[in-house]
């Protein structure tokens, strides 16, 4: 097909990967401190809903995002409390969080907006797209990278910030320490629970942004269960990227890219189910190349709590 690798492919990849990247980074920061967060999908959905709901009331997209972030962070505190304080099984809690947010958003959709299925509203302003001044000028790159929603850029920024946080900052090394050996960290006077809380809350913020990118960046509406399982793909990105921000960026990029490709491949004479499979198959193939030799500490923790 002539348009398989056109310029808009990169553009499209960036858009598609942004929610995966942000939620994946949220998963990464959790797993760095030893929390295996399966609730990313639910947190994202909550963020998507709150973004739209707040936007409908405040008519201000920025304020809406702020409210989505605050609300989702509070919601993620529930997950933190259950797993960190009450030592509930991380995976069960995560799945329950996903169910809960589907329930809450659907219920709220009905009670607040009196609609079922989806809420949209022509007056509602979505996120603008930003033309990035300098990059904009560069002939080819400008077209490729410019003109995305601010959250896409924020996702890239978060990757960089998180990379430096873990690589360069003292706090970052404390986060790692908690994930590597919580008992040792505690014996050195580190407040392990507090750090785990911080990580979960940060993942709340990141998932809120991921959700907002879906409901206010990519489209301007909310529909029931609109994350369509992206939280689990983000989880795969977290694991595949070995909880390293750059790794998460690359793996969510790979996923976004293959998904963009798979849309284009639908024109070919291949059964659609096979083209839809492409991102998953490619990701598995990618694992043959980037082998995961290190055991995730979060994994061990969650497996430990499962016995």
């Amino acid at each position, binding site marked *: 097909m002539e348009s398989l690798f056109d310029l808009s492919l990169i553009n499209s990849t960036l858009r598609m990967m942004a929610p995966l990247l942000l939620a994946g980074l949220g998963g990464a920061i959790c797993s760095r401190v030893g929390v295996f967060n399966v609730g990313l999908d639910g947190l994202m959905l909550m963020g998507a809903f709150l973004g739209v709901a707040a936007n409908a009331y405040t008519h201000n997209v920025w304020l809406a995002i702020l409210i989505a972030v605050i609300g989702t962070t509070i919601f993620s505190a529930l997950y933190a409390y259950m797993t960190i304080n009450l030592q509930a099984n991380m995976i069960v809690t995560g799945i329950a969080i996903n169910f*809960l947010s589907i329930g809450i958003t659907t219920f709220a959709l*009905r009670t607040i907006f009196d609609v079922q299925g989806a809420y949209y509203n022509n007056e509602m302003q979505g996120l603008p797209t930003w033309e990035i001044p300098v990059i904009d000028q560069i002939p080819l790159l400008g077209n490729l990278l410019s003109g995305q929603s601010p959250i896409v850029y924020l996702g890239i920024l978060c990757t960089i910030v998180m990379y430096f946080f873990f690589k360069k900052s003292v706090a970052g090394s404390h986060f790692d320490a908690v994930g590597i050996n919580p008992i040792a960290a505690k014996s050195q006077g580190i407040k392990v629970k507090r750090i785990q809380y911080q990580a979960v809350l940060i993942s709340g913020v990141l998932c809120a942004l991921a959700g907002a990118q879906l409901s206010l960046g990519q489209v301007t509406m909310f529909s029931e269960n609109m994350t369509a399982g992206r939280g689990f793909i983000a989880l795969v990105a977290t694991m595949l990227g070995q909880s390293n921000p750059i790794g998460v960026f690359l793996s969510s990029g790979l996923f976004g890219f293959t998904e963009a490709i798979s849309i284009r491949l639908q024109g070919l004479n291949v059964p659609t189910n096979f083209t839809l499979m492409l991102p998953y198959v490619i990701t598995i193939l990618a694992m043959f190349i980037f082998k995961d030799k290190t055991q995730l500490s979060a994994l061990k923790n969650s497996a430990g709590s499962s016995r």
Partner: protein
Amino acid sequence: MNKLKTNATVFIQPLLAVIVGLLVGTIAIMLSGESVIVTYQEMWDGAFGNLYFLTNTLERAIPIILAGLGVAFAFRAGFFNLGAEGQLVMGAVTTAIVTVYLPFQGLLNMVISIIAGMLIAGLYSFLAGWMEQRFQINLLISTLLLNYIAVLFAGYLVSEPFRDTSSAGGVPQTVMVDEASRLPKLLTGMNLHYGFVIAIILAIVIAFIMKRTTFGYEVRMLGQNVFFAQYGGINRKKIMFTSLLISGMLAGLAGSVEVLGIHYRFIEGALSNPQFAWTGLMAALLANSNPIGTTVVAIFLAALDTGSLGVERNTDVPNSISGIIQAVLILFISAKFTMNFLNQRKKEGK
């Protein structure tokens, strides 16, 4: 040390969790403006109200029990199998196709198609184990991804080569299984079928294997400490492969039994939408991978499902509220309440 005391905490814990869950559920119901008592009454009735509802609950528990047993088996051997959904779907679609297209009859047909479904599902899970063993591919990621592939692949099978084109239908599905090959009902007029007997027997068999056989011992030791197991002469590869195979076969059986006992055909989405696999996973986790415990928890989780159906039918509480109550109950059930609360109280008391 004090056995009585520990036994008491074992029971107090989930009880407290259920109470807290119900309390939070109460808030949700009150928000929706319905009577709390009526709603909970309907929930109870929907799950256990009379023989019909009780058998429905048990019927719904069948795939959850089987998928849960599968997950639990792999857990015991130390492997985190997140691929129950894919395995379940593979088992179901295989069984449906084999029943309809291979020239066997009646009981034989039923047995062969169930075994075929279990085998394919087992091999599907084996594949993930092989990739981990041979290429160090993280089992968690591969099993998660294989779920999507299985669902799409099964979808392809029933919308292209094996689609039922006879009825003027629109849903991708296979042809219906003939009467003789179906799993018979346990009681006439009720939905509960022999799959339940199979599930219960398997739970007991697996409990026996785990506790009383050398193979079960090998599986448990491998799950507890790989190095210790290897030191003692246990073949890690062999146990890993067999336990993943068994795990997949159980999940596959969940699908086969759903096909032959309830739907009588494979319908796209009919087995993934109800989240049987994930519910089974939760049951296994909540029961610490104990087979009998998994069965009990699975029935409890199924009761939450059928109970919320009752709420949906007979009250104005929206469907989503029953979803909320259900999620809240699950959320609190695994919390370690008593420990913390009692400990805190002790400390404060001093």
